[in-house]
């Protein structure tokens, strides 16, 4: 009935990717080493001859798979043909080198043709190792292309760098994701509202829909976390209690993503985060809406919400992997890293991973929503300073470090002034250069720009421009929501 054996089919599918990934990593390591050796020795030196042989040997293996092949850097990764090379200790240095240097050279990489002969390859290696790039990347590309032509190196061609190579996604796609992010965010909000309604009136909670909402959030975060993070900075909601749960969920997922959780575990974490305050629905409405300061009795009751939450969850759902994991976040999100906090534990211990994550997200969002909760704006630097001062006691040091790395020291949505007297909103964190994020420039000291004139700049690429301070948008009537569609 079938033309091909099972093994043949499986082999065909897997071998290509695995082989190319393995060969690719070997190739960039050897290429990197060859370029270094070529910069130190003459072509007839034994060290180089030996290294050159190694390079040819790897390339021969690749040519056995592909007649021509490309080695390109895109979006922070190296690709051999269309296969993204995995990170490994052996090839990490080489990857970093090519990612950093090729961009300066104005190229995304090279295409190698099968008929490439050893002499031509040697010429290429010595040319590339000795090439001194100028300031202008585009000019560098032009020079490389022309020099290769002069040297009659015809079977290696440079691939021109394009800004798109550095974008994780194209612009249209980015817009689509932004729309999707909003829809998903509001869906999650609707689920939280609906859950709250169900908890109060029907004594149940819809876990299937909660999971779906979380899955949507995870999908967007995996594509563009900034699109989701900017929504967590919006404050103009009728009932902020529900938004808080969604924000905590988004922030927890972003931290979980940076920590390296897989999709399934992110989903479980998200469910716990979205439901972390569900026990509050079981508290008297008068307490939740109490305008005055809480007295001791109020606090005593308020401190029961994690227990109410877990009891409610177990009453209405069965305990299986997802509910069990989620429940630890519900029960322990007010327990500190050192085991203090509430509810009081019989055995003082460090909370579970999900609870430690949700605790960071919960505290961060509660503090940065200052005006909502405290009737006073607390700026991101104050929030982060406060949290850093509690590290090791209230928060897991490594998780907090990952969190700040993920959201940035100027979190998305923060309104900042810059040294060139412009005002902007942080659009995207730059994890490798957190002091210089991407900014939507919305005005300058003369006033606000027309929306059409709002531009996005990458501070890490701007010479002499830096953030000078963070400002309170509410104080100056600057509304983040107005700029959601830009970018």
């Amino acid at each position: 009935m079938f033309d091909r054996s099972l093994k043949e089919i499986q082999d065909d599918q897997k071998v290509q990717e695995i082989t190319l990934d393995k060969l690719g990593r070997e190739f960039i390591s050897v290429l990197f080493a060859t370029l270094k050796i070529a910069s130190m020795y003459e072509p007839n030196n034994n060290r180089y001859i030996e290294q050159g042989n190694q390079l040819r040997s790897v390339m021969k293996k690749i040519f056995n798979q592909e007649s021509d092949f490309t080695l390109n850097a895109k979006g922070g990764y190296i690709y051999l043909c269309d296969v993204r090379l995995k990170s490994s200790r052996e090839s990490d240095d080489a990857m970093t080198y090519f990612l950093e240097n090729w961009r300066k050279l104005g190229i995304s990489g090279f295409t190698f043709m099968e008929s490439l002969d050893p002499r031509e390859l040697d010429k290429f290696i010595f040319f590339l190792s000795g090439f001194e790039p100028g300031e202008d990347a585009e000019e560098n590309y032009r020079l490389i292309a022309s020099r290769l032509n002069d040297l009659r190196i015809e079977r290696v061609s440079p691939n021109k760098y394009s800004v798109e190579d550095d974008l994780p996604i194209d612009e249209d796609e980015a817009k689509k994701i932004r729309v999707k992010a909003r829809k998903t965010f509001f869906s999650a909000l609707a689920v939280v509202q609906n859950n709250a309604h169900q908890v109060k009136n029907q004594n149940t909670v819809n876990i299937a829909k909660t999971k779906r909402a979380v899955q949507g959030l995870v999908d967007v975060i995996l594509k563009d976390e900034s699109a989701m993070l900017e929504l967590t900075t919006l404050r103009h909601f009728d009932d902020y209690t529900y938004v808080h749960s969604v924000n905590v969920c988004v922030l927890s997922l972003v931290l979980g993503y940076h920590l390296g959780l897989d999709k399934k575990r992110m989903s479980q974490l998200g469910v716990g985060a979205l439901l972390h305050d569900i026990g509050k629905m079981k508290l008297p409405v008068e307490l939740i809406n109490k305008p005055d300061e809480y007295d001791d009795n109020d606090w005593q009751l308020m401190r029961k919400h994690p227990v109410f939450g877990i009891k409610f969850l177990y009453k209405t759902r069965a305990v299986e992997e997802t509910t069990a994991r989620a429940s630890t976040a519900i029960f322990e999100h007010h327990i500190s890293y050192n085991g203090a906090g509430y509810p009081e534990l019989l055995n003082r211990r460090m909370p579970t991973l999900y609870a430690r994550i949700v605790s960071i997200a919960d505290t961060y969002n509660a503090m940065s929503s200052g005006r909502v909760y405290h009737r006073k704006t607390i700026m991101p630097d104050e929030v982060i300073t406060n949290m850093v001062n509690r590290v090791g006691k209230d928060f897991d040091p490594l998780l907090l470090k990952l969190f700040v790395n993920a959201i940035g020291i100027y979190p998305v949505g923060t309104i900042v002034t810059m040294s060139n007297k412009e005002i902007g909103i942080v659009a995207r964190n730059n994890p490798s250069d957190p002091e210089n994020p991407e900014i939507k420039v919305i005005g300058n000291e003369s006033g606000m720009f027309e929306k059409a004139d709002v531009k996005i700049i990458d501070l890490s690429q701007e010479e002499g421009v830096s953030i000078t301070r963070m400002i309170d948008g509410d104080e100056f009537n600057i509304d983040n929501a107005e700029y959601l569609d830009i970018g």
Partner: protein
Amino acid sequence: MEKYIEITDEDIAEVSMASSKGVTDVFNQLLKTVKARLVYPASSKLPQQFKNELFGALSSLLDQQDELAFKVEADSISYKDACVYKARSKTENFAHPFFRDGILEFKFKSGLTFEELEEFIEISSQMTRSAIFDDDAATLLWEAGFEHITYELMDDFLDIETFEYGTDMLKTGKSPSDSSFKDIFESEIDLNLTEEDFDLDSEKNKSSSAPAGYRNIEDNVAQFIGTITEFSDSEKDKVATMLRADAEFDHIKYAIDILFEILGTESDNASYNETMDLITKVGTDFIRTGDFNSVLTIIDRAKELSQIFMKLDDPKHEKMAALVEKFAASEKIRILVEYLNKARDVNFEDVTKYLKMLPWQAVDPLVWALGELDHYPARRAVCKALEVQAVDHPDILGKGTESPRWYVVRNVISILGRIGDKRAFIYFKRAIQHPDIRVRKETVLAAGRIVSDEAAEFLVTALNDKDEKIQTLALREIVEKKIIVAFEPVRALIINKEFKNRPAEQIRELLAGFAKLGGGNAFAHLSKIILNKFQIPSEKNERLKINAIRALGYIDTSESKALLGKLASGRNRKLGDMARRILNKVKKGDRLV
């Protein structure tokens, strides 16, 4: 709870013709594979074989057309507008679980791996079964993260009517005036900013380790922020350890720990009772989902606490004991039976371990379960548990002998025998009258297991059972257990005039048993049979004599050997041959003398 959805052969056969015959064939193969997975455990060869065939067929098709998209309707699935599956009824509907969960289409794409297909089959079979929990098809497909199987979800699945927020609702409607923008920069002057603050190359800015936007932060914070982009090898290792520890962590057990922790902190009676009820509910859910390890953890914990409270003279020990007893209630056993009759891939070791931990109150419902369970391994697990639980309650177990189901009676009798309590004989006496021979046989075997006068008496009585098979079985037990008191009743059977009319095998066993039990005391009667000169020689009489000679071999006395010797050299050839054979065996030590 929904009913099990079954896919029948007719379903597959009656699929209407799709435009492409190959696609229809592949879809039929998919259904066949899912069906095989529903019926057989994962380790079984048949589903594996079907999966291999399906993968081969699907891969061949995908080589030709890159992707295969199947549209899902409420009761049908189609490919390019041609129906490849039509449900026969509401309960036999492969399309329904996907449709119910908002999946409009699923696609297999070129590059599909065997592992992906295997997981898709698992998900499909899981969904086709009853959905007890919250993992719908979309969630399972999402979690699987397939690269070459995609699905389209109903867009408005999450839309909820009560939700009223729109994008515009997020805007405050406020906007800054130009003067307020000026204020922003003027307010910087209030912060004592100078030109130097804006000069990145200034000494002030160069020496500061804090980001420019951060003002007045302490050194420790500045240091923390200064290192957030760097992760040392030790930090990377810590992250890896954290993730590994989390993956290995038993969250379900931890959830149970939390429940008992909450119980331990409850300060009023009502809350305490509420948490106790919650623990029972959680335990019941574990039974419903077949997580017997977890329900066992609950029972262990409750028993442990009960002991502690008892030592402390705390009345809560009774509550804890009552909690354990709740798991022995009929309602819980009924749930267990439902699960065991329906589930595949059950770990019966866990089931047995769990059942053994139940208190004696479970005896009665478990006896009921013996009659309801469909599968042998499940009944065996219950029997093993009853051997433990009914040790002090054979009277409750014994009531099972009144069951109208013969196999329940037989199992109960067998367990009573294994428990070995003398009180079992009340039930044996009833069971030995049972119309089913299998029950009566089991009764004799069970009685043989209990070494006691009652057993001897019972087995001796069984020697006179109307069924000769029972008599023989009883004799074997009597001989094996060396119940000497049975010698006379056996003798009575042998001297009965009708004895020689019994089947040859029985005569042989009875005479051998008689010799083994009586030893020297049996010699007189055996020799009498052997030496008796029948007026009318017959085959039956001869057979009787030969078996008596054979039985002599079990009597280790000089007179027995002498008689065998005499017979060996006697004129009757048949008797002589047998006597010589027996003597040889005795010499070789083959005979139990």
